[in-house]
């Protein structure tokens, strides 16, 4: 939770312009900034009425503590150095605090000043108070005066100088620049908390519910019992593991950040793996990041098969009807000129028969049975889709009138679909009946009258229909075979410089293009056929077979080509295009539709995915810092780890990166030290207590800081040398 202990709400002194704020704007600004605790610290003034009004408005959103920023005159440095001191007291004492300030701060508040000696006498009767002295910020008291104040306050309050106690309190002081010490010192409420993009309010790792709890955390005398109060809500039953034959550990892990650190080859990974096995057996969902397997792990994350819904379209376009019709296709027999000649010869002596006009009837219409079957399939698919739509519960989406209208539209569509299909059905069946009648009656009359029937056609229509049907079949199959679609984008992770990385699938019948990077590292994202017996070669063979039919050739050659194609289809058991369905995976960024992540980017994507897995209970990160830049570690990685911790996930990180060990403020640490060659000691502890204890020997202890500096910072020499080189760094 964010904390702002330096906040002005009134214009009191010169230079306070822009600090007046009303209750509504105050609550809106503080809430929007995600601040959980705010102290009102106006210059030499405490307005109890405004305070009470603000508290009333902020109930349930954030805590407001009473405070003041006093002009204080030093007494102990010899120079009477003037400085500002913020005093914050328990909100339960707000009325008394108000009385003290009202009595103290009288007259011209611009010129008001109080002796530093008087502060303890004035405020300690209220109970424990927080005194925050300007430090590296003008005007600030002399160090002698601050020392004096600290000695007077003792255990009855806290004098805060700098965030030296931040580690102990779990405070994350990110904005420790001179003008951002422990609070926003807001200048303009239109730009709260600050216009400085680098400014960050301090955050507490613990959820603080009272003023005294906050002081407990800041207290340098914090004892284990007090810490336990804050840590216990995230405690889980001890995790019992045996990572090595001679090592059995009961780890008091938390639903927060837990760190395993130590030198290289000290067994951190084995401990992490044993923790993973333990939680898996417990039925928890465990997600792991392992730098060694990152390429394969990212592949597993990215790979996916098309869903049934995505494949529906391919079922509809599978051309099973067309392939069946193609298998049965052949040139039909044509009537010859001789049939005409024979007919006329026979009619010369059979005048009765010639009077029956049906004997000379012809039938030249096209009956497209395949089209009728296709239409029927489309009709049943559409009806099924409509049925699905009718099942959708729209009662909370549409108004009763809209619902009635929606149902009416569905009914209209349903009737329209039936009407459309019936039109084709009636036309086809009528033609079939007509043909049946002619074909049946003509031989009957011929037989009874001894006259030959006139051919239905000269054959041109039959030939044309055969040709047309063949072209249509090959065209439909060929076009559908080339059909492909792209699925919608799904985010895989985010890269600092490139933004979101998304994956998508290209699904198709024929071989679709694969990633341009197919010969690179992403060869692990190949095209995949749903039917494992199909491959690129078989796709290519079918494509070539379909292309082999040339309509420029003579009808006899066409017949030969079709015979070959029919043999190919039969020999290879090709009854539908669906078995040729295949898909390729692609990664995409804002500027690149075929993105291949670098080695480092692979790590980032994997870590991002693991840490944002909403289904996981336990996140195990083995050296997530490996190969990463410090800007990534201290930026997105730390942020994502903290976000996961806020969701009460059990996070265990094996690392020797100081940023991860220190800046995650882990609840629990395991430290592995090689005390002799191949002889290791394990310590448990936390940064809050600055103590690591050997669980096998409670007298064997060491400061957490020592372990960190030795193994993470490279030792005291390296640390101090870096400090010397950097000096006081202020960008």
């Amino acid at each position, binding site marked *: 939770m964010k904390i702002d202990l330096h906040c002005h709400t009134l214009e009191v002194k010169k230079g306070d312009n822009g600090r007046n704020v009303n209750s509504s704007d105050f609550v809106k600004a503080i809430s929007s900034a995600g601040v959980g605790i705010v102290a009102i610290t106006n210059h030499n003034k405490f307005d109890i009425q405004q305070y009470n009004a603000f508290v009333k408005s902020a109930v349930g959103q954030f805590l407001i503590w009473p405070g003041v920023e006093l002009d204080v005159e030093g007494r102990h440095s010899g120079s009477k150095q003037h400085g500002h001191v913020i005093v914050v007291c328990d909100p339960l004492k707000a009325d008394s605090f108000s009385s003290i300030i009202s009595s103290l701060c009288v007259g011209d508040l611009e010129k008001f000043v109080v002796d530093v000696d008087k502060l303890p006498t004035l405020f300690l009767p209220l109970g424990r108070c927080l005194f925050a002295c300007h430090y590296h910020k003008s005007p600030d008291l002399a160090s002698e005066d601050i020392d004096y104040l600290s000695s007077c306050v003792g255990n009855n309050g806290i004098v805060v100088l700098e965030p030296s106690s931040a580690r102990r309190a779990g405070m994350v002081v990110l904005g420790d620049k001179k003008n951002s010490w422990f609070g926003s010192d807001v200048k303009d409420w239109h730009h709260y908390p600050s216009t400085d993009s680098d400014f960050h309010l301090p955050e507490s790792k613990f959820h603080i519910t009272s003023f005294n709890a906050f002081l407990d955390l800041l207290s340098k005398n914090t004892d284990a019992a007090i810490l336990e109060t804050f840590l216990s809500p995230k405690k889980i039953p001890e995790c019992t593991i045996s990572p090595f034959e001679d090592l059995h550990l009961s780890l008091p892990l938390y639903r927060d950040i837990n760190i395993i650190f130590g030198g290289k080859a000290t067994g951190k990974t084995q401990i992490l793996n044993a923790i993973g096995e333990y939680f898996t057996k417990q039925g928890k969902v465990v997600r792991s990041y392992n730098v060694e397997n990152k390429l394969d792990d990212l592949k597993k994350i990215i790979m996916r098969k098309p869903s049934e819904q995505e494949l529906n379209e391919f079922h509809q376009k599978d051309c099973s009807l067309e392939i069946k019709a193609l298998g049965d296709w052949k040139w039909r027999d044509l009537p010859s*000129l001789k049939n005409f*000649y024979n007919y*006329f010869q026979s009619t010369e002596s059979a005048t009765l028969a010639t009077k029956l006009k049906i004997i000379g009837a012809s039938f030249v219409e096209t009956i497209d049975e395949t089209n009728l079957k296709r239409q029927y399939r489309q009709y049943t698919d559409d009806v099924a889709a409509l049925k699905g739509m009718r099942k959708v519960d729209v009662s909370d989406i549409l108004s009763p009138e809209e619902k009635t209208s929606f149902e009416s539209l569905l009914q209209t569509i349903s009737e329209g679909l039936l009407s459309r299909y019936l039109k084709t059905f009636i036309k086809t069946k009528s033609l079939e009946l007509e043909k049946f009648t002619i074909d049946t009656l003509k031989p009957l009359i011929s037989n009874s009258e001894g006259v030959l029937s006139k051919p239905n056609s000269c*054959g041109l229509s039959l*030939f*044309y229909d055969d040709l047309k049907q063949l072209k249509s079949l090959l065209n439909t199959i060929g076009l559908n075979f080339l059909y492909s679609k792209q699925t919608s984008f799904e985010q895989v992770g985010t890269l600092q410089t490139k933004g979101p990385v998304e994956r998508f699938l290209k699904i198709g019948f024929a071989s679709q293009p694969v990633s341009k990077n197919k010969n690179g590292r992403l060869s692990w994202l190949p095209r995949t056929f749903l039917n494992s017996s199909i491959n690129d070669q078989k796709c290519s063979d079918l494509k070539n077979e379909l292309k082999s039919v040339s309509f420029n050739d*003579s009808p*006899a050659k066409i017949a030969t080509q079709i015979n070959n194609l029919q043999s190919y289809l039969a020999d290879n058991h090709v009854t539908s295009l669906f078995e040729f369905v295949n898909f390729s995976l692609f990664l995409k960024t804002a500027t690149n539709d075929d993105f291949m992540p670098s080695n480092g980017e692979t790590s980032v994507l994997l870590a991002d995915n693991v840490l944002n897995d909403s289904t996981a209970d336990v996140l195990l990160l083995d050296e997530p810092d490996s190969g990463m830049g410090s800007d990534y570690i201290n930026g997105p990685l730390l942020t994502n780890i903290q976000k996961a911790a806020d969701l009460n996930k059990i996070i265990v990180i094996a690392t020797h990166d100081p940023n991860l060990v220190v800046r995650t403020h882990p609840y629990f640490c395991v430290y592995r030290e090689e005390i002799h060659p191949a002889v290791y000691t394990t310590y448990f502890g936390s940064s809050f207590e600055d103590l690591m204890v050997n669980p096998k020997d409670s007298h064997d202890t060491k400061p957490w800081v020592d372990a960190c500096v030795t193994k993470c910072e490279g030792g005291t020499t390296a640390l101090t040398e870096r400090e010397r080189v950097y000096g006081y760094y202020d960008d």
Partner: protein
Amino acid sequence: MDTTTIEKIPFILKLDVNNKTVLETSIASQVFQISFETEDQSYLRDFFAALLKAEETKHFLFGFQIDPTVNNDTLKHVAESYIDSLNSELSKILDDMDTAVAQKNN
């Protein structure tokens, strides 16, 4: 060969009156002789294929005519009937082709 020529540019149909066995036609420089006696299917298909493929197909429409000087009734009926059928079916096919082209353009 004693033939009577029925001509309608660019389609030419020749009718062998003497032996009454062959209808001869020339399409796109190819000459087809359709025998009264044979039932050779491939020959007919080649004829139809050439007919459908030829650029001048539209001109064939109603271009098949019988020579009025032919006086053999049977032959006349055969030729008339066959040519009627050709004209009728070609007409339907051309309509169908036009419809297909219109659908494609839309």
